[in-house]
């Protein structure tokens, strides 16, 4: 398994979301932070909602930003597609300050989106959401044959895999040869 954090699907830019006003803490004004994904669309999220993400929580806990500073310095997550980040922000807002339910049925049904969400959630270290996502991924192939699993999870067969690897090697070899030729040309 390779470890990649790069989402690849493109999506329409989403409108910035505004976190609902928290009625639970009237005395201490809630602080907000700003995040954006690959599409640069900025989302305003409360610190309470962001607590779900161990990564962001760790980043903001010692910053002591003022509202203006936070607005001026949104956290860039260039490796996360805009629509996926929107899903994550929505989930964090919905579950702000609430105990998470044993199951979440609102996850994307489309496997490409689900896989991208898994990668984003794993990167942002949102433990509960990652658990739901992984469970959903596992359920996709329950009772299926190896061939069906290959199709559902988009896994190449060993033969296809080897062919692709050969092709890549060949390409890399050609490129290297090209570079050497170019370098030789430069030297001249």
């Amino acid at each position, binding site marked *: *398994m*390779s*470890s*990649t954090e790069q*989402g*690849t*699907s493109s999506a329409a830019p989403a409108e910035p979301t505004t976190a609902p006003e928290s009625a639970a803490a009237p005395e201490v004004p809630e602080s907000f932070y700003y995040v954006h994904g690959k599409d640069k669309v900025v989302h305003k999220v409360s610190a309470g909602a962001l607590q779900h993400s161990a990564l962001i929580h760790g980043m903001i806990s010692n910053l002591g930003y003022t509202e203006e500073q936070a607005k001026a310095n949104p956290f860039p997550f260039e490796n996360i597609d805009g629509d996926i980040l929107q899903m994550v922000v929505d989930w964090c807002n919905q579950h702000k300050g609430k105990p998470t339910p044993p199951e979440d049925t609102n996850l994307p049904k489309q496997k*490409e989106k689900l*896989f*991208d969400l*898994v*990668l984003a959630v*794993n990167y942002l270290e949102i433990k509960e959401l*990652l*658990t739901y996502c*992984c*469970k959903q*991924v*596992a*359920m996709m*192939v*329950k*009772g*299926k*044959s*190896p061939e069906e*699993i*290959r199709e559902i*999870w*988009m*896994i*190449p*067969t*060993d033969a296809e*895999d080897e062919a692709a690897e050969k092709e890549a090697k060949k390409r890399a070899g050609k490129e290297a040869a090209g570079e050497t030729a170019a370098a030789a040309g430069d030297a001249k």
Partner: protein
Amino acid sequence: MTSIMEMPELVMEKIVGFSDFKAVLTLRQVCRDFQNFIDDLKDSKLPDSEISEIEIISKKDENKIILRFMHSPGDYHRVEYSEMENSRSFESEEEEEENPRRKTITDLGGSNVVDVAIRDLELVLRFQKSKLFTSYFQFDDFRLLNDSTIHTLPTRLSNMFNVSCPRIKTREIRMKVYDSSQILPILQFADPTNLSLLEICSMDNNMEVDSKEIVETDYWKKANEVHCDFHMSNLKVEDVCHFYNITLKTNSFNAKDMDTLKKAFLSLPEHSIYDSWTIRLKDFNESDELSNLWGPPFDFGFATAWHFRLKDLKKNVLQIYSEMDDSQEYNIFDFTIMGLKHVPNGAVVHY
């Protein structure tokens, strides 16, 4: 487009953790990367197979090894390894399916059937988290079949349980043996800690076993139920007093020993109506001594019986029923708990 193969390992571990046993075995067949990933996982990351019964059998007439895994009654997997056809056949039956039997046969190529069977068993046992209800072992006598390698199966299993795989945790060990020398090695496949039943049957009607070694094992001491269908010599009364259920044959007990057994049965802690001992005594000729110790028995004509009060089950009694078996070789003594109202008219209930 993101593929599952790009997921970080921790994520994949979580996904495997949410899959059930059958799904993980299927995942291993998806591709080599998956197989390697699953084989490298720690056993604790794998789901529980929830298998309740395992049978490991070798059959001489067909040169076969059979592994049978039962999840619940009616839901089992049976894997047959045929040395003649060099194949593995996999058959499953599930209650809820319309067409219940599915059978797939794989050609094993140049692989040895014992190697493949051991490898498969080892893989399945990695998923065994909960204790098994029953483990059954039966190995035919392959000693005279020189061209078969199946005779190595018990030794290979011993090695596997000693080296690469923890011993089976099971409530019941059942086995069928052709020779008494098989008993102790087979027992070693299991962990005695949770054992409650030990059943040893013989393929040879005339098998006789010296009980000295077996009664010293933890398996014998931990079990509270023992069933043996062969003759046991050198058995002592104190070797059997702790069992709630017994079936055995011996020539070791005299009338005084039977009296000790009666007292032991009566003083078992927490009787249940299912407690029962069937002890077959060869050449027992001390019936008169028993009558002296226990008083005159009730005479059924073809059998005799004594009845004794139980302290904890007031509405029940212990009946010791005695008759000769069909071969006229053994005197059968049946210790059972029965309702007071079923004691025959005229029988004395002793205190």
